[in-house]
């Protein structure tokens, strides 16, 4: 009994610490689960309202807090909740063996749309889409040759903004060497690196310069990889190796492991370029060494797919994020980047040329 008393005392004292003697926000029927809470009801009114539509999401084994593509995709779901007034549910995967179960669990929760994150979920998503014709499925970073009518691939031509970043890097490099490394030698990673290399080549061609890229060769498809998306230490040593080879701009494409690359850039006083999200927002502590970031708008794509589903406009055509539709973009320059107007104008010009199809990237 003494234990019970102790536990009770603990609960009460924590209540005392946390609590004031505030007022109950809703006296009438606070137990109703649908009642919006005070904090939610003060937020902006939804632009659209689909209270009967339930949008759901399954992560891959990185989890929704990976500061990378799962998290960005999840932001799309959260934006949909706010902007479209849909209900949401989500499940994190711990291992590839769970993918099919996780999708089925959400189907059972009467989700109208289910977004899965990453190519590893490709099989499981296709199988679930075939079995559940009434649910709209979309999958981030993957596309099928022949998708069922209720399955949409969300892909991103990140080579386009990476091309601009490569041009920018080449223009800013003083040593004439820039470096890039990836997490794994897989297409969704190397597409960034290929675009980056092409951007540098474009600069060399236009300006008659000879800026070298180390860490990726699009011809042989070989380069520098950490083989790990988690370990900051590995990212740091990859970057440091490049810095000793003279690189003064580092472009890590390795998710959280890439943060180590920015750390190395900061330690050695060279520039970094971030991927997926605007580094000055997601990795603020390294903002001072960032030239820019290559943004992959997974949140935009996910929200769009949910919006289409909620408005009965869902189709199975593969979404390709481009500079044109805003699915990919170059982030605002870093605060210390000091990009002169002339260079900025060139970048904007190149951007337009890519949109107009005068330059093909990738």
């Amino acid at each position, binding site marked *: 009994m003494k234990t019970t008393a102790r536990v009770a005392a603990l609960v009460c004292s924590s209540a005392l610490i946390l609590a004031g003697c505030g007022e109950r926000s809703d006296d009438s029927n606070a137990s109703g689960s649908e009642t919006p809470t*005070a904090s939610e009801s003060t937020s902006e009114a939804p632009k659209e309202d689909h209270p009967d539509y339930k949008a759901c999401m399954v992560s891959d084994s990185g989890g929704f807090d990976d500061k990378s593509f799962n998290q960005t995709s999840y932001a799309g779901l959260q934006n949909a909740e706010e902007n479209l007034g849909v209900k949401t549910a989500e*499940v994190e995967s711990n291992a590839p063996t769970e993918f099919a179960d996780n999708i089925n669990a959400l189907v059972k929760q009467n989700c109208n749309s289910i977004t899965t994150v990453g190519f590893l979920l490709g099989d499981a998503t296709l199988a679930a889409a075939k079995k559940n014709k009434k649910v709209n499925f979309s999958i981030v970073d993957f596309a099928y040759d022949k998708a069922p009518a209720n399955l949409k691939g969300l892909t991103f031509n990140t080579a386009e903004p990476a091309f601009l970043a490569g041009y920018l890097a080449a223009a800013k490099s003083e040593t004439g060497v820039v470096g890039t490394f990836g997490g794994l030698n897989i297409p969704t990673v190397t597409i960034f690196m290929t675009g980056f290399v092409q951007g540098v080549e474009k600069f060399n061609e236009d300006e008659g310069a000879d800026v070298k890229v180390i860490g990726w060769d699009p011809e042989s498809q070989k380069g520098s990889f950490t083989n790990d998306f988690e370990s900051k230490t590995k990212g740091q040593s990859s970057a440091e190796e490049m810095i000793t080879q003279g690189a003064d701009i580092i472009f890590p494409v390795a998710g959280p492991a890439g943060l180590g690359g920015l750390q190395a850039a900061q330690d050695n006083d060279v520039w970094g370029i971030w991927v997926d999200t605007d580094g000055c927002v997601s990795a603020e502590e390294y903002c001072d060494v960032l030239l820019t970031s290559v943004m992959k708008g997974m949140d935009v794509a996910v929200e769009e797919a949910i919006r289409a589903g909620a408005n009965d406009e869902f189709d199975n055509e593969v979404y390709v994020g481009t500079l044109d539709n805003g699915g990919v973009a170059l982030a605002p320059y870093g605060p210390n980047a000091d990009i002169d107007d002339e260079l900025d104008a060139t970048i904007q010009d190149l951007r337009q040329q890519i949109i107009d199809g005068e330059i093909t990237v990738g």
Partner: protein
Amino acid sequence: MSDPTTTEKPVAPEPERPARSRAASSMQSWLPTVKDSVAAIVLALLVGAVLIMFSTPRVIESLSYFFSYPWDFFKFSGIAVFDGYSALVRGSVGSGSSLVRTIERAAPLICAGLGVTLAFRAGMFNIGAQGQMILGAVAAGYIGFHYDLPVGLHLLLALAGAIVLGGLWGGIAGFLKARTGAHEVITTIMLNYVGRFVILFFLGKETFQRPNSDNLLSPPVNDSATFPAVFGLHLGVLLAIVAALGIWWLLERSTWGFEIRAVGANPQAARTAGMSVSRVYITAMVVAGMLSGLAVSMMVLGRQDPLTDQIAGSVGFDAITVALLGRATPLGTVLAGLLFGALSAGGLTMQAAAGVPPELAQVLQALIVLFVAAPALVRGLFRLRGDGQAVGVEAKGWGG
């Protein structure tokens, strides 16, 4: 040959030690008793309930007016905890499909856990189930998707491949320990890393990738290489039961099992009695690796999971927990495996239906282990009998 891992030095006998603790080796004596395990699970669920309460926005909010309407807090907490745990039960044993899910998740844990158990009984801490599983997966996957063979034969070959390669990988650590005295904890952990790069290497090759794709993702194995399924449950899970019975028989009834236990209890004494300690180390690790290979075949050949570098998930490491929680006995491992399978399957429904944070199921598992590893704390809280008694039961339970 000297053995650096044992805590009992042959040249310096300890006459002051009581007879019963000599029976149980130092490694075994901190394993939990049944009562401790149950108490640990209960305690973990209680702490979990508090976590559920304080991860529910409505409960937190009701604290702000706790003194005006204290009942709200208790009501909302009650609802949140009830919702969460009822989802846990529903998702693990509440329906046919959730039972299938529980068993499917438990089976590989049990197999790999048995491998850890067996090595443990031989006095070795096998951290290498993960790497052994990965190697097994490479073999089972390659045989499964690369060849076209008749139904039945294909399955047997793929299964044999997983078991053989897993066994070889485990055997390396056993061999290193037996011949060079290299500590198995270090070698198995390192072999886990090596295993991960081995599968990455293979996944980088055309033959292991899907046509027209560069992704590090293999095709699933052909249908001819899969376990037959009944009611959505692949029958590979039966092999987990067979394996548990086999290991029980091996440990408790066979001469070799006696040698394993003798070496685990005191390698010097076993050597003096004429047993080959090296042989026991090697064979125990080979069989442990074979069990890991069997574990991963449940995924590759049972559920047709394609090979990725994460094919083993965290099963290889959870298996260590399962074996410890199961007191390194075959029956205990089966029960602990089922518990973890249920927690994992139910954790999913907690997330999907009750909106409980996904980490909670894992936190529950971690708490159970934590409380298992701190028996004094649990005994104190639950007024269980003290140390001496526990060790006495332990020694008997281990068959002395």
